[in-house]
């Protein structure tokens, strides 16, 4: 079982994700954004960073990277895909998840640990967590303020697709949303970094429950 971690020019969390996946008991390899195929991977992670410099908007260029067609195809076929931070922004720009991430309400780049609550376990990232479980995870973003129209919000709520909510909203996100998933639950985007909370040395291992959920879904494919 192998996780493919997509590297865009400007990604900077790809090795964190590889280490996090290993800490969770899986294996990972790096994929280049210019590849048109995903090689032989069972799951895909779009890592954090500043893909294509975040020029124009975060994710605006990454959406057109050649690998994204293969990622979309993989997702359509039920493949587990997680976008972390910048990866979440890329997934919304690519239309694989609804809504958008705009500038933090306080106009500050936020770099600290926050508490998030697992509000849905229907996603590949949260299936192994307990509903209501609170996790302490690092955030590291300027554009993490999740925004969507009322219709989308109603749909996300009705279909139990809001997987993580901030306990104390740091960035102005609509409905305290820290992470959402696709209707089938196989595509997940979240602003916090579970991979940076995957070893006692990092101050928290709360991200492991998420990484292990993801890995166990990938292993079953």
């Amino acid at each position: 079982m192998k996780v493919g971690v997509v590297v865009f020019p400007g990604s900077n969390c790809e090795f964190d994700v590889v280490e996090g996946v290993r800490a969770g008991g899986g294996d990972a390899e790096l994929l280049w954004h210019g590849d048109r195929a995903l090689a032989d991977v069972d799951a895909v992670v779009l890592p954090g960073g500043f893909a294509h410099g975040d020029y124009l908007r975060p994710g605006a260029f990454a959406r057109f990277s050649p690998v994204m067609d293969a990622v979309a195809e993989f997702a359509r076929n039920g493949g587990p895909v997680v976008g972390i931070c910048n990866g979440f922004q890329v997934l919304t720009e690519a239309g694989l998840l609804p809504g958008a991430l705009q500038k933090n309400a306080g106009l500050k780049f936020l770099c600290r640990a926050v508490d998030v609550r697992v509000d849905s376990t229907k996603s590949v990232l949260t299936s192994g967590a307990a509903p209501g479980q609170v996790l302490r995870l690092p955030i590291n973003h300027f554009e993490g303020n999740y925004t969507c129209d009322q219709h989308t919000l109603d749909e996300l709520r009705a279909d139990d697709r809001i997987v993580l909510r901030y306990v104390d909203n740091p960035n102005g996100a609509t409905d305290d949303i820290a992470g959402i998933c696709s209707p089938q639950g196989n595509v997940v985007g979240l602003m916090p970094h579970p991979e940076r909370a995957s070893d006692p040395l990092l101050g928290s291992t709360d991200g492991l429950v998420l990484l292990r959920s993801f890995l166990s879904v990938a292993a079953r494919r």
Partner: protein
Amino acid sequence: MASFPVLVEVTLRPGIADPQGATIERALPALGFDGVEGVRVGKAIRFTVEAPDLESARSRVDDLCQKFLTNPVIEDAKVTIER
């Protein structure tokens, strides 16, 4: 074919919070600028587009705005073609 100069003004859609605009607006009274309201921050993008006529220039630019220059979830584009 003609070359049309284009100005695209990208702004946040009505109802979408604009923390930059709000911060600028809050700062103005302290700087002695009273009576300034409704500050919204956006970006301006200038380029030229090759097209046979004005109408097709506009349609190409609209498509470009929809697919790339704006995120229609949160942004609007005002297109001015100068000719």
